[in-house]
Protein backbone atom coordinates (compact mmCIF):
# COMPACT_ATOMS: atom_id res chain seq x y z
CA UNK A 1 0.00 0.00 0.00
CA UNK A 2 2.62 2.47 1.08
CA UNK A 3 4.74 1.87 -2.01
CA UNK A 4 1.87 2.43 -4.41
CA UNK A 5 1.10 5.72 -2.78
CA UNK A 6 4.72 6.77 -2.90
CA UNK A 7 5.04 5.96 -6.56
CA UNK A 8 1.79 7.70 -7.37
CA UNK A 9 3.05 10.74 -5.52
CA UNK A 10 6.45 10.46 -7.06
CA UNK A 11 5.04 10.66 -10.57
CA UNK A 12 3.63 14.04 -9.91
CA UNK A 13 6.65 14.99 -7.84
CA UNK A 14 4.39 15.66 -4.90
CA UNK A 15 5.99 13.48 -2.28
CA UNK A 16 6.25 16.11 0.41
CA UNK A 17 2.89 17.73 -0.06
CA UNK A 18 0.02 17.04 2.30
CA UNK A 19 -3.46 16.27 1.13
CA UNK A 20 -4.72 13.19 -0.61
CA UNK A 21 -1.79 10.97 0.40
CA UNK A 22 -2.53 11.67 4.04
CA UNK A 23 -6.14 10.75 3.53
CA UNK A 24 -5.07 7.29 2.36
CA UNK A 25 -3.35 6.66 5.65
CA UNK A 26 0.19 7.11 4.42
CA UNK A 27 2.07 7.20 7.70
CA UNK A 28 5.64 7.45 8.91
CA UNK A 29 5.95 3.79 8.01
CA UNK A 30 5.80 4.56 4.31
CA UNK A 31 9.26 5.98 4.33
CA UNK A 32 10.95 3.08 6.09
CA UNK A 33 9.87 0.69 3.35
CA UNK A 34 11.90 2.52 0.75
CA UNK A 35 15.35 1.48 -0.33
CA UNK A 36 18.32 3.84 -0.28
CA UNK A 37 17.91 4.54 -3.98
CA UNK A 38 14.29 5.48 -3.51
CA UNK A 39 15.23 7.94 -0.81
CA UNK A 40 17.59 9.89 -3.05
CA UNK A 41 15.21 10.14 -5.99
CA UNK A 42 12.28 11.92 -4.28
CA UNK A 43 14.70 14.49 -2.86
CA UNK A 44 15.92 15.34 -6.34
CA UNK A 45 12.40 15.36 -7.64
CA UNK A 46 11.36 17.59 -4.79
CA UNK A 47 13.98 20.14 -5.77
CA UNK A 48 12.99 19.88 -9.40
CA UNK A 49 9.34 20.25 -8.41
CA UNK A 50 10.15 23.31 -6.31
CA UNK A 51 12.04 24.88 -9.20
CA UNK A 52 9.23 24.16 -11.58
CA UNK A 53 6.67 25.61 -9.20
CA UNK A 54 8.75 28.75 -8.77
CA UNK A 55 9.02 29.13 -12.51
CA UNK A 56 5.29 28.59 -12.97
CA UNK A 57 4.47 31.05 -10.19
CA UNK A 58 6.59 33.77 -11.74
CA UNK A 59 5.06 33.02 -15.11
CA UNK A 60 1.61 33.55 -13.60
CA UNK A 61 2.79 36.75 -11.96
CA UNK A 62 4.75 38.04 -14.95
CA UNK A 63 2.01 40.22 -16.53
CA UNK A 64 1.20 41.87 -13.22
CA UNK A 65 4.82 42.39 -12.22
CA UNK A 66 5.70 43.83 -15.62
CA UNK A 67 2.73 46.16 -15.32
CA UNK A 68 3.73 47.34 -11.85
CA UNK A 69 7.27 47.97 -13.05
CA UNK A 70 6.19 50.12 -15.99
CA UNK A 71 3.07 51.78 -14.57
CA UNK A 72 3.90 52.05 -10.89
CA UNK A 73 7.60 52.01 -10.12
CA UNK A 74 8.80 53.89 -13.19
CA UNK A 75 6.09 56.60 -12.87
CA UNK A 76 6.92 57.16 -9.20
CA UNK A 77 10.60 57.66 -10.01
CA UNK A 78 9.66 59.80 -12.99
CA UNK A 79 7.38 61.97 -10.86
CA UNK A 80 10.13 62.61 -8.33
CA UNK A 81 12.65 63.35 -11.09
CA UNK A 82 10.24 65.74 -12.78
CA UNK A 83 9.48 67.58 -9.57
CA UNK A 84 13.21 68.34 -9.28
CA UNK A 85 13.57 69.58 -12.84
CA UNK A 86 12.59 72.35 -15.16
CA UNK A 87 10.87 71.13 -18.28
CA UNK A 88 8.21 72.71 -20.41
CA UNK A 89 8.15 70.62 -23.53
CA UNK A 90 7.91 67.16 -24.95
CA UNK A 91 11.56 66.52 -25.82
CA UNK A 92 13.09 64.41 -23.07
CA UNK A 93 16.51 65.88 -23.84
CA UNK A 94 15.32 69.31 -22.64
CA UNK A 95 14.88 68.30 -19.02
CA UNK A 96 17.09 70.51 -16.81
CA UNK A 97 17.83 69.95 -13.12
CA UNK A 98 16.24 72.55 -10.85
CA UNK A 99 16.84 71.31 -7.32
CA UNK A 100 14.00 72.16 -5.00
CA UNK A 101 13.03 75.32 -6.92
CA UNK A 102 9.61 73.93 -7.83
CA UNK A 103 8.75 73.22 -4.22
CA UNK A 104 10.11 76.58 -3.09
CA UNK A 105 7.96 78.33 -5.68
CA UNK A 106 4.84 76.51 -4.47
CA UNK A 107 5.34 77.81 -0.95
CA UNK A 108 6.73 81.23 -1.87
CA UNK A 109 4.96 84.41 -0.81
CA UNK A 110 2.19 85.34 -3.19
CA UNK A 111 1.88 81.81 -4.50
CA UNK A 112 -1.73 80.70 -4.66
CA UNK A 113 -0.84 77.12 -3.71
CA UNK A 114 -1.09 77.42 0.07
CA UNK A 115 -4.08 79.75 -0.03
CA UNK A 116 -6.54 79.37 -1.51
CA UNK A 117 -5.70 76.06 -3.23
CA UNK A 118 -4.61 73.86 -0.31
CA UNK A 119 -7.12 75.54 1.98
CA UNK A 120 -9.86 74.80 -0.54
CA UNK A 121 -8.67 71.19 -0.73
CA UNK A 122 -8.97 70.77 3.03
CA UNK A 123 -12.32 72.57 3.21
CA UNK A 124 -13.62 70.47 0.35
CA UNK A 125 -12.59 67.20 2.01
CA UNK A 126 -13.74 68.25 5.48
CA UNK A 127 -17.06 69.58 4.20
CA UNK A 128 -17.74 66.41 2.25
CA UNK A 129 -16.96 64.18 5.21
CA UNK A 130 -19.05 66.24 7.62
CA UNK A 131 -22.09 66.29 5.35
CA UNK A 132 -21.88 62.71 4.10
CA UNK A 133 -21.19 61.30 7.55
CA UNK A 134 -24.06 63.15 9.24
CA UNK A 135 -26.46 62.17 6.48
CA UNK A 136 -25.25 58.58 6.39
CA UNK A 137 -25.49 58.09 10.15
CA UNK A 138 -29.06 59.38 10.22
CA UNK A 139 -30.19 57.40 7.19
CA UNK A 140 -28.37 54.19 8.15
CA UNK A 141 -29.81 54.40 11.66
CA UNK A 142 -33.34 54.90 10.35
CA UNK A 143 -33.04 52.25 7.63
CA UNK A 144 -32.51 49.53 10.24
CA UNK A 145 -36.04 50.19 11.52
CA UNK A 146 -37.63 49.91 8.10
CA UNK A 147 -38.79 47.19 5.78
CA UNK A 148 -37.24 46.70 2.35
CA UNK A 149 -33.78 47.72 3.55
CA UNK A 150 -32.20 46.45 0.34
CA UNK A 151 -34.49 48.65 -1.73
CA UNK A 152 -33.53 51.80 0.19
CA UNK A 153 -29.84 51.01 0.08
CA UNK A 154 -30.04 50.46 -3.69
CA UNK A 155 -31.68 53.86 -4.14
CA UNK A 156 -28.94 55.62 -2.22
CA UNK A 157 -26.42 53.75 -4.31
CA UNK A 158 -27.46 55.11 -7.70
CA UNK A 159 -25.03 58.07 -7.74
CA UNK A 160 -22.08 55.77 -7.10
CA UNK A 161 -22.52 53.81 -10.32
CA UNK A 162 -23.04 56.98 -12.35
CA UNK A 163 -20.28 58.77 -14.22
CA UNK A 164 -19.03 61.99 -12.68
CA UNK A 165 -19.90 63.75 -15.93
CA UNK A 166 -23.58 62.94 -15.43
CA UNK A 167 -23.59 63.76 -11.72
CA UNK A 168 -21.70 67.02 -12.25
CA UNK A 169 -23.76 68.25 -15.18
CA UNK A 170 -27.15 67.41 -13.75
CA UNK A 171 -26.33 69.31 -10.57
CA UNK A 172 -24.66 72.12 -12.47
CA UNK A 173 -27.86 72.75 -14.41
CA UNK A 174 -30.03 72.23 -11.35
CA UNK A 175 -28.06 75.11 -9.77
CA UNK A 176 -28.62 77.41 -12.78
CA UNK A 177 -31.21 80.22 -12.57
CA UNK A 178 -33.55 78.14 -14.75
CA UNK A 179 -32.77 74.92 -12.91
CA UNK A 180 -34.54 72.78 -10.36
CA UNK A 181 -32.91 74.06 -7.16
CA UNK A 182 -33.66 77.69 -7.93
CA UNK A 183 -37.09 76.61 -9.14
CA UNK A 184 -37.78 75.19 -5.67
CA UNK A 185 -36.36 78.32 -4.00
CA UNK A 186 -38.60 80.52 -6.16
CA UNK A 187 -41.63 78.40 -5.42
CA UNK A 188 -40.92 78.96 -1.73
CA UNK A 189 -40.86 82.70 -2.38
CA UNK A 190 -37.07 83.00 -2.14
CA UNK A 191 -34.79 84.77 -4.57
CA UNK A 192 -32.57 82.78 -6.96
CA UNK A 193 -28.98 82.10 -5.93
CA UNK A 194 -26.09 82.09 -8.40
CA UNK A 195 -24.67 78.99 -6.73
CA UNK A 196 -21.69 78.25 -8.93
CA UNK A 197 -21.03 81.81 -10.15
CA UNK A 198 -20.72 83.42 -6.72
CA UNK A 199 -17.27 82.89 -5.12
CA UNK A 200 -18.92 82.64 -1.70
CA UNK A 201 -21.26 79.79 -2.59
CA UNK A 202 -19.34 77.96 -5.33
CA UNK A 203 -17.22 75.66 -3.15
CA UNK A 204 -20.02 74.68 -0.74
CA UNK A 205 -22.26 73.97 -3.74
CA UNK A 206 -19.79 71.45 -5.15
CA UNK A 207 -19.20 69.98 -1.68
CA UNK A 208 -22.92 69.22 -1.40
CA UNK A 209 -22.77 67.27 -4.66
CA UNK A 210 -19.69 65.31 -3.65
CA UNK A 211 -21.35 64.43 -0.35
CA UNK A 212 -24.56 63.48 -2.15
CA UNK A 213 -22.61 61.17 -4.42
CA UNK A 214 -20.70 59.43 -1.64
CA UNK A 215 -23.64 58.92 0.68
CA UNK A 216 -24.41 55.43 -0.65
CA UNK A 217 -21.18 53.70 0.29
CA UNK A 218 -21.07 55.41 3.69
CA UNK A 219 -24.60 54.18 4.40
CA UNK A 220 -23.61 50.69 3.31
CA UNK A 221 -20.65 50.47 5.67
CA UNK A 222 -22.50 52.07 8.57
CA UNK A 223 -25.47 49.70 8.14
CA UNK A 224 -23.07 46.77 8.36
CA UNK A 225 -21.57 48.32 11.48
CA UNK A 226 -25.02 48.82 13.01
CA UNK A 227 -25.97 45.22 12.35
CA UNK A 228 -22.87 44.07 14.22
CA UNK A 229 -24.04 45.73 17.45
CA UNK A 230 -25.47 43.00 19.71
CA UNK A 231 -29.17 43.34 20.26
CA UNK A 232 -28.95 42.66 24.00
CA UNK A 233 -27.58 46.17 24.57
CA UNK A 234 -30.72 47.68 23.15
CA UNK A 235 -32.94 45.35 25.16
CA UNK A 236 -31.07 46.19 28.35
CA UNK A 237 -31.38 49.91 27.63
CA UNK A 238 -35.08 49.53 26.99
CA UNK A 239 -35.56 47.69 30.27
CA UNK A 240 -33.83 50.57 31.99
CA UNK A 241 -36.31 52.92 30.35
CA UNK A 242 -33.90 54.79 28.09
CA UNK A 243 -35.49 56.92 25.37
CA UNK A 244 -34.58 56.61 21.69
CA UNK A 245 -32.28 59.62 21.80
CA UNK A 246 -30.35 58.31 24.82
CA UNK A 247 -30.07 54.89 23.20
CA UNK A 248 -28.70 56.49 20.05
CA UNK A 249 -26.10 58.69 21.75
CA UNK A 250 -25.10 56.28 24.52
CA UNK A 251 -25.16 52.93 22.72
CA UNK A 252 -25.36 53.25 18.95
CA UNK A 253 -22.80 55.99 18.38
CA UNK A 254 -20.06 54.67 20.72
CA UNK A 255 -20.37 51.11 19.42
CA UNK A 256 -20.40 52.34 15.84
CA UNK A 257 -17.12 54.18 16.34
CA UNK A 258 -14.89 51.80 14.32
CA UNK A 259 -17.13 52.05 11.24
CA UNK A 260 -17.51 55.80 11.71
CA UNK A 261 -13.77 56.22 11.91
CA UNK A 262 -13.25 54.10 8.82
CA UNK A 263 -15.78 55.99 6.73
CA UNK A 264 -14.45 59.28 8.03
CA UNK A 265 -10.81 58.65 7.14
CA UNK A 266 -11.35 56.96 3.77
CA UNK A 267 -13.80 59.62 2.62
CA UNK A 268 -11.46 62.35 3.80
CA UNK A 269 -8.65 60.86 1.70
CA UNK A 270 -10.97 60.52 -1.28
CA UNK A 271 -12.03 64.14 -0.81
CA UNK A 272 -8.44 65.38 -0.73
CA UNK A 273 -7.68 63.93 -4.14
CA UNK A 274 -10.93 64.47 -6.03
CA UNK A 275 -11.16 67.04 -8.76
CA UNK A 276 -13.16 65.42 -11.58
CA UNK A 277 -16.42 66.78 -10.19
CA UNK A 278 -14.90 70.26 -9.95
CA UNK A 279 -13.69 70.12 -13.56
CA UNK A 280 -17.17 69.17 -14.72
CA UNK A 281 -19.03 71.71 -12.59
CA UNK A 282 -16.76 74.76 -12.63
CA UNK A 283 -14.27 74.06 -15.42
CA UNK A 284 -11.07 75.76 -14.32
CA UNK A 285 -11.89 75.82 -10.62
CA UNK A 286 -13.60 79.18 -10.86
CA UNK A 287 -14.92 81.70 -10.27
CA UNK A 288 -11.37 82.94 -9.76
CA UNK A 289 -9.76 80.28 -7.62
CA UNK A 290 -12.86 79.73 -5.51
CA UNK A 291 -13.17 76.02 -6.27
CA UNK A 292 -9.57 75.29 -7.22
CA UNK A 293 -8.07 72.34 -5.33
CA UNK A 294 -4.58 70.82 -5.25
CA UNK A 295 -5.17 67.95 -7.65
CA UNK A 296 -6.84 70.29 -10.15
CA UNK A 297 -3.98 72.76 -9.77
CA UNK A 298 -1.56 69.94 -10.60
CA UNK A 299 -3.67 68.95 -13.60
CA UNK A 300 -3.78 72.47 -14.98
CA UNK A 301 -0.10 73.21 -14.43
CA UNK A 302 0.72 70.05 -16.35
CA UNK A 303 -1.85 69.79 -19.11
CA UNK A 304 -2.87 73.41 -19.64
CA UNK A 305 0.50 75.11 -19.16
CA UNK A 306 2.83 72.17 -19.89
CA UNK A 307 4.80 72.93 -16.74
CA UNK A 308 5.63 69.34 -15.80
CA UNK A 309 8.09 70.26 -13.06
CA UNK A 310 5.90 72.40 -10.85
CA UNK A 311 2.90 70.19 -11.55
CA UNK A 312 4.80 67.14 -10.33
CA UNK A 313 5.93 69.07 -7.27
CA UNK A 314 2.32 69.96 -6.48
CA UNK A 315 1.31 66.33 -6.94
CA UNK A 316 4.04 65.14 -4.58
CA UNK A 317 3.08 67.65 -1.88
CA UNK A 318 -0.50 66.42 -1.98
CA UNK A 319 0.71 62.83 -2.11
CA UNK A 320 2.83 63.23 1.02
CA UNK A 321 -0.12 64.84 2.79
CA UNK A 322 -2.33 61.87 1.90
CA UNK A 323 0.38 59.36 2.76
CA UNK A 324 0.73 60.81 6.26
CA UNK A 325 -3.03 60.58 6.76
CA UNK A 326 -3.09 57.00 5.41
CA UNK A 327 -0.31 55.93 7.77
CA UNK A 328 -2.05 57.64 10.69
CA UNK A 329 -5.19 55.74 9.70
CA UNK A 330 -3.36 52.40 9.65
CA UNK A 331 -1.89 53.16 13.05
CA UNK A 332 -5.28 54.20 14.39
CA UNK A 333 -6.93 51.01 13.20
CA UNK A 334 -4.17 48.82 14.55
CA UNK A 335 -4.71 50.43 17.94
CA UNK A 336 -8.44 49.91 17.55
CA UNK A 337 -7.82 46.24 16.92
CA UNK A 338 -5.83 45.99 20.16
CA UNK A 339 -8.64 47.66 22.08
CA UNK A 340 -11.04 45.11 20.69
Amino acid at each position, binding site marked *: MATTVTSADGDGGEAERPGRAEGRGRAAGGRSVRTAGDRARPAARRTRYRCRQTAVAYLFLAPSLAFFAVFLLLPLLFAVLLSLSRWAGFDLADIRPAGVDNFAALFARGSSFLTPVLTNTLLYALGTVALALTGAVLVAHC*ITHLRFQGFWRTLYFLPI*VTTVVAVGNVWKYMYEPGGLVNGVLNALGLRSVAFLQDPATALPSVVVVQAWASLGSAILILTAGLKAIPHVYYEAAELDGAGPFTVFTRITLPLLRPSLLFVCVTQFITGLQSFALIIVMTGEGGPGDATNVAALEMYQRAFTYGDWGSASAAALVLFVLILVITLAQLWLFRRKGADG
Partner: protein
Amino acid sequence: MRRRGRVPWLSYLLVGLGAVVTVVPFLDMLLTSFKGPGEYGRLPYRFLPEAFDLSNYREAFVRLDLPLLFRNSVVATAVITGSVLLTSSLAGYALAKLRFPGRDVIFRLVLATMMFPPFVFFIPHFLILVHWPLAGGNGLLGEGGAGLTVSLAALVMPFLVSGFGIFLMRQFIVSVPDEMLEAARIDGAGEFTVWWRIVVPQTRPVAVTLALLTFVGAWNEYIWALLVSTANPRLMTLPVGIQTLQSYLDPNRMVPVMMAGLMLSVLPVLLLFLLLQKHYIRGVMLSGLK
Protein backbone atom coordinates in the same frame (compact mmCIF):
# COMPACT_ATOMS: atom_id res chain seq x y z
CA MET B 1 -37.47 43.83 19.15
CA ARG B 2 -40.71 45.32 20.41
CA ARG B 3 -39.95 48.59 18.67
CA ARG B 4 -40.41 46.84 15.36
CA GLY B 5 -44.11 46.66 16.12
CA ARG B 6 -44.51 50.43 16.24
CA VAL B 7 -44.62 52.13 12.87
CA PRO B 8 -41.41 54.17 12.68
CA TRP B 9 -42.94 57.22 11.02
CA LEU B 10 -39.99 59.47 11.63
CA SER B 11 -37.61 56.95 10.09
CA TYR B 12 -39.80 56.55 7.02
CA LEU B 13 -40.00 60.31 6.68
CA LEU B 14 -36.24 60.82 6.93
CA VAL B 15 -35.22 57.91 4.72
CA GLY B 16 -37.93 58.81 2.22
CA LEU B 17 -36.84 62.42 2.12
CA GLY B 18 -33.24 61.39 1.58
CA ALA B 19 -34.32 58.99 -1.16
CA VAL B 20 -36.18 61.80 -2.91
CA VAL B 21 -33.07 63.98 -2.81
CA THR B 22 -31.09 61.07 -4.25
CA VAL B 23 -33.48 60.18 -7.03
CA VAL B 24 -34.74 63.62 -8.09
CA PRO B 25 -31.53 64.60 -9.95
CA PHE B 26 -31.87 61.41 -12.01
CA LEU B 27 -35.52 62.20 -12.70
CA ASP B 28 -34.58 65.75 -13.60
CA MET B 29 -31.98 64.40 -16.03
CA LEU B 30 -34.57 62.11 -17.61
CA LEU B 31 -37.33 64.72 -17.81
CA THR B 32 -35.05 67.50 -19.04
CA SER B 33 -33.89 65.21 -21.85
CA PHE B 34 -37.49 65.32 -23.17
CA LYS B 35 -37.94 69.07 -22.93
CA GLY B 36 -38.56 70.79 -26.26
CA PRO B 37 -36.53 73.67 -27.70
CA GLY B 38 -36.83 76.80 -25.57
CA GLU B 39 -38.48 74.94 -22.73
CA TYR B 40 -35.43 74.61 -20.51
CA GLY B 41 -34.50 77.83 -18.75
CA ARG B 42 -37.99 79.31 -18.94
CA LEU B 43 -39.22 80.79 -15.67
CA PRO B 44 -40.96 79.74 -13.51
CA TYR B 45 -39.29 76.34 -13.45
CA ARG B 46 -41.38 73.35 -14.47
CA PHE B 47 -40.35 69.85 -13.51
CA LEU B 48 -42.34 68.06 -16.21
CA PRO B 49 -41.81 68.60 -19.93
CA GLU B 50 -44.76 69.98 -21.91
CA ALA B 51 -44.61 67.15 -24.40
CA PHE B 52 -42.23 64.22 -24.52
CA ASP B 53 -40.01 65.50 -27.28
CA LEU B 54 -37.47 63.07 -28.69
CA SER B 55 -35.64 65.69 -30.74
CA ASN B 56 -32.89 66.04 -28.12
CA TYR B 57 -31.86 62.44 -28.65
CA ARG B 58 -31.81 63.00 -32.40
CA GLU B 59 -29.77 66.16 -31.85
CA ALA B 60 -27.29 64.23 -29.68
CA PHE B 61 -26.80 61.80 -32.54
CA VAL B 62 -26.23 64.66 -34.97
CA ARG B 63 -23.85 66.62 -32.77
CA LEU B 64 -21.83 63.68 -31.55
CA ASP B 65 -20.20 60.79 -33.29
CA LEU B 66 -22.09 58.45 -30.98
CA PRO B 67 -21.03 55.23 -32.77
CA LEU B 68 -17.38 56.19 -32.24
CA LEU B 69 -17.98 57.18 -28.60
CA PHE B 70 -19.86 53.96 -27.90
CA ARG B 71 -17.22 51.89 -29.64
CA ASN B 72 -14.40 53.49 -27.67
CA SER B 73 -16.26 53.12 -24.39
CA VAL B 74 -17.23 49.51 -25.06
CA VAL B 75 -13.81 48.40 -26.32
CA ALA B 76 -11.93 50.13 -23.50
CA THR B 77 -14.26 48.78 -20.84
CA ALA B 78 -14.18 45.26 -22.25
CA VAL B 79 -10.40 45.17 -22.58
CA ILE B 80 -9.84 46.59 -19.10
CA THR B 81 -12.35 44.24 -17.47
CA GLY B 82 -10.99 41.19 -19.29
CA SER B 83 -7.40 42.02 -18.51
CA VAL B 84 -8.04 42.78 -14.83
CA LEU B 85 -9.94 39.49 -14.42
CA LEU B 86 -7.26 37.45 -16.15
CA THR B 87 -4.21 38.98 -14.47
CA SER B 88 -5.88 39.08 -11.05
CA SER B 89 -6.86 35.43 -11.27
CA LEU B 90 -3.41 34.30 -12.44
CA ALA B 91 -1.50 36.36 -9.90
CA GLY B 92 -4.04 35.57 -7.17
CA TYR B 93 -3.59 31.84 -7.77
CA ALA B 94 0.19 32.09 -7.63
CA LEU B 95 0.09 34.11 -4.43
CA ALA B 96 -2.51 31.89 -2.78
CA LYS B 97 -1.52 28.36 -3.75
CA LEU B 98 2.02 28.17 -5.12
CA ARG B 99 5.11 28.14 -2.95
CA PHE B 100 8.08 30.07 -4.22
CA PRO B 101 10.78 32.40 -2.92
CA GLY B 102 9.72 36.06 -2.85
CA ARG B 103 6.04 35.35 -2.43
CA ASP B 104 5.57 37.40 0.73
CA VAL B 105 7.49 40.33 -0.69
CA ILE B 106 5.37 40.36 -3.83
CA PHE B 107 2.17 40.08 -1.84
CA ARG B 108 3.19 43.06 0.28
CA LEU B 109 4.01 44.98 -2.87
CA VAL B 110 0.54 44.28 -4.21
CA LEU B 111 -0.98 45.56 -0.98
CA ALA B 112 1.21 48.65 -1.20
CA THR B 113 0.02 49.47 -4.72
CA MET B 114 -3.44 50.13 -3.31
CA MET B 115 -2.06 52.97 -1.20
CA PHE B 116 -1.10 55.17 -4.13
CA PRO B 117 -3.76 57.66 -5.16
CA PRO B 118 -4.39 57.80 -8.92
CA PHE B 119 -3.63 61.50 -9.37
CA VAL B 120 0.07 60.90 -8.67
CA PHE B 121 0.23 58.91 -11.88
CA PHE B 122 -1.59 61.18 -14.34
CA ILE B 123 1.51 63.10 -15.41
CA PRO B 124 4.05 60.24 -15.56
CA HIS B 125 1.59 57.86 -17.20
CA PHE B 126 0.78 60.39 -19.87
CA LEU B 127 4.44 61.11 -20.55
CA ILE B 128 5.30 57.41 -20.60
CA LEU B 129 2.61 56.75 -23.20
CA VAL B 130 3.72 59.71 -25.30
CA HIS B 131 7.31 58.51 -25.19
CA TRP B 132 6.58 54.79 -25.60
CA PRO B 133 9.47 53.41 -27.65
CA LEU B 134 8.83 52.36 -31.25
CA ALA B 135 5.16 53.34 -31.27
CA GLY B 136 3.29 56.07 -33.09
CA GLY B 137 6.40 57.24 -34.95
CA ASN B 138 8.66 57.17 -31.89
CA GLY B 139 12.29 56.08 -32.05
CA LEU B 140 13.97 53.55 -29.79
CA LEU B 141 14.34 56.16 -27.05
CA GLY B 142 10.75 57.32 -27.35
CA GLU B 143 11.55 60.49 -29.27
CA GLY B 144 9.92 62.09 -32.26
CA GLY B 145 6.33 60.82 -32.41
CA ALA B 146 3.09 60.69 -30.48
CA GLY B 147 3.75 57.27 -28.95
CA LEU B 148 0.80 55.20 -27.84
CA THR B 149 -1.51 58.24 -27.70
CA VAL B 150 -2.41 57.49 -31.33
CA SER B 151 -4.14 54.24 -30.48
CA LEU B 152 -6.87 52.88 -28.26
CA ALA B 153 -4.10 51.34 -26.17
CA ALA B 154 -3.64 54.72 -24.51
CA LEU B 155 -7.15 54.51 -23.12
CA VAL B 156 -6.61 51.18 -21.40
CA MET B 157 -2.90 50.78 -20.63
CA PRO B 158 -2.82 52.28 -17.11
CA PHE B 159 -5.79 50.16 -15.98
CA LEU B 160 -4.86 46.69 -17.22
CA VAL B 161 -3.81 45.34 -13.82
CA SER B 162 -5.41 46.08 -10.48
CA GLY B 163 -3.67 45.58 -7.15
CA PHE B 164 -7.05 45.40 -5.48
CA GLY B 165 -8.16 42.76 -7.99
CA ILE B 166 -5.14 40.58 -7.24
CA PHE B 167 -5.72 40.99 -3.52
CA LEU B 168 -9.42 40.13 -3.82
CA MET B 169 -8.73 37.03 -5.93
CA ARG B 170 -5.94 35.85 -3.67
CA GLN B 171 -8.12 36.10 -0.56
CA PHE B 172 -10.81 34.06 -2.27
CA ILE B 173 -8.53 31.43 -3.84
CA VAL B 174 -6.90 30.72 -0.47
CA SER B 175 -10.17 29.10 0.59
CA VAL B 176 -10.26 26.69 -2.37
CA PRO B 177 -9.45 23.29 -0.79
CA ASP B 178 -5.90 22.08 -1.43
CA GLU B 179 -7.26 18.56 -1.88
CA MET B 180 -8.98 19.57 -5.11
CA LEU B 181 -5.79 21.00 -6.58
CA GLU B 182 -3.80 18.00 -5.34
CA ALA B 183 -6.23 15.55 -6.93
CA ALA B 184 -5.91 17.28 -10.28
CA ARG B 185 -2.11 17.31 -10.07
CA ILE B 186 -2.06 13.61 -9.26
CA ASP B 187 -4.17 13.05 -12.34
CA GLY B 188 -1.34 14.64 -14.24
CA ALA B 189 -2.61 18.18 -14.65
CA GLY B 190 -0.08 20.97 -14.98
CA GLU B 191 -0.45 24.19 -12.99
CA PHE B 192 -2.08 25.99 -15.89
CA THR B 193 -4.71 23.26 -16.22
CA VAL B 194 -5.24 23.26 -12.45
CA TRP B 195 -5.83 27.02 -12.60
CA TRP B 196 -8.15 26.90 -15.60
CA ARG B 197 -10.13 23.75 -14.71
CA ILE B 198 -10.33 24.00 -10.91
CA VAL B 199 -9.56 27.53 -9.70
CA VAL B 200 -11.35 29.57 -12.35
CA PRO B 201 -14.71 27.77 -12.01
CA GLN B 202 -14.44 27.83 -8.22
CA THR B 203 -13.89 31.58 -8.14
CA ARG B 204 -16.82 32.55 -10.32
CA PRO B 205 -18.72 34.51 -7.62
CA VAL B 206 -15.77 36.74 -6.78
CA ALA B 207 -14.97 37.09 -10.48
CA VAL B 208 -18.47 38.49 -11.09
CA THR B 209 -17.94 40.99 -8.29
CA LEU B 210 -14.55 42.06 -9.58
CA ALA B 211 -15.80 42.24 -13.16
CA LEU B 212 -18.70 44.45 -12.15
CA LEU B 213 -16.55 46.81 -10.08
CA THR B 214 -14.04 47.09 -12.90
CA PHE B 215 -16.71 47.49 -15.55
CA VAL B 216 -18.47 50.33 -13.75
CA GLY B 217 -15.16 52.02 -12.95
CA ALA B 218 -13.88 51.79 -16.53
CA TRP B 219 -17.16 52.84 -18.14
CA ASN B 220 -17.41 55.92 -15.92
CA GLU B 221 -13.72 56.89 -16.03
CA TYR B 222 -13.37 60.53 -16.95
CA ILE B 223 -10.08 62.29 -16.18
CA TRP B 224 -7.75 59.87 -17.93
CA ALA B 225 -10.01 59.57 -20.98
CA LEU B 226 -10.21 63.37 -21.11
CA LEU B 227 -6.42 63.64 -21.02
CA VAL B 228 -5.83 61.07 -23.72
CA SER B 229 -8.50 62.47 -26.01
CA THR B 230 -7.02 65.95 -25.69
CA ALA B 231 -4.01 64.47 -27.44
CA ASN B 232 -6.16 62.53 -29.89
CA PRO B 233 -9.91 63.31 -30.31
CA ARG B 234 -10.47 59.92 -31.95
CA LEU B 235 -10.10 58.42 -28.46
CA MET B 236 -13.09 60.18 -26.91
CA THR B 237 -15.28 58.00 -24.74
CA LEU B 238 -18.95 58.65 -23.97
CA PRO B 239 -18.43 60.84 -20.89
CA VAL B 240 -15.73 62.90 -22.61
CA GLY B 241 -17.72 63.30 -25.82
CA ILE B 242 -20.88 64.39 -24.04
CA GLN B 243 -18.94 66.92 -22.00
CA THR B 244 -17.80 68.58 -25.26
CA LEU B 245 -21.43 69.49 -25.96
CA GLN B 246 -21.38 72.23 -23.34
CA SER B 247 -19.15 74.40 -25.49
CA TYR B 248 -21.91 74.59 -28.11
CA LEU B 249 -24.03 77.69 -28.51
CA ASP B 250 -27.03 78.44 -26.40
CA PRO B 251 -27.14 76.60 -23.04
CA ASN B 252 -30.94 76.54 -23.03
CA ARG B 253 -30.86 74.43 -26.16
CA MET B 254 -27.77 72.47 -25.24
CA VAL B 255 -28.73 71.36 -21.74
CA PRO B 256 -31.59 69.07 -22.83
CA VAL B 257 -29.39 67.59 -25.56
CA MET B 258 -26.67 66.97 -23.02
CA MET B 259 -29.13 65.28 -20.68
CA ALA B 260 -30.21 63.06 -23.56
CA GLY B 261 -26.58 62.08 -24.19
CA LEU B 262 -26.04 61.47 -20.49
CA MET B 263 -29.10 59.24 -20.29
CA LEU B 264 -27.60 57.13 -23.09
CA SER B 265 -24.30 56.82 -21.24
CA VAL B 266 -25.79 56.17 -17.81
CA LEU B 267 -28.54 53.69 -18.71
CA PRO B 268 -26.39 50.64 -19.56
CA VAL B 269 -24.59 50.81 -16.22
CA LEU B 270 -27.73 51.50 -14.22
CA LEU B 271 -29.47 48.49 -15.76
CA LEU B 272 -26.48 46.26 -15.13
CA PHE B 273 -26.28 47.51 -11.55
CA LEU B 274 -29.97 46.89 -10.89
CA LEU B 275 -29.61 43.35 -12.25
CA LEU B 276 -26.46 42.45 -10.37
CA GLN B 277 -26.50 44.85 -7.43
CA LYS B 278 -25.80 42.17 -4.81
CA HIS B 279 -22.46 41.36 -6.41
CA TYR B 280 -21.59 45.01 -6.81
CA ILE B 281 -22.50 45.93 -3.26
CA ARG B 282 -20.43 43.05 -1.95
CA GLY B 283 -17.51 44.37 -3.93
CA VAL B 284 -17.88 47.82 -2.41
CA MET B 285 -18.03 46.27 1.05
CA LEU B 286 -14.86 44.29 0.33
CA SER B 287 -13.00 47.25 -1.06
CA GLY B 288 -14.13 49.47 1.77
CA LEU B 289 -15.01 52.52 -0.24
CA LYS B 290 -15.00 53.03 -3.91
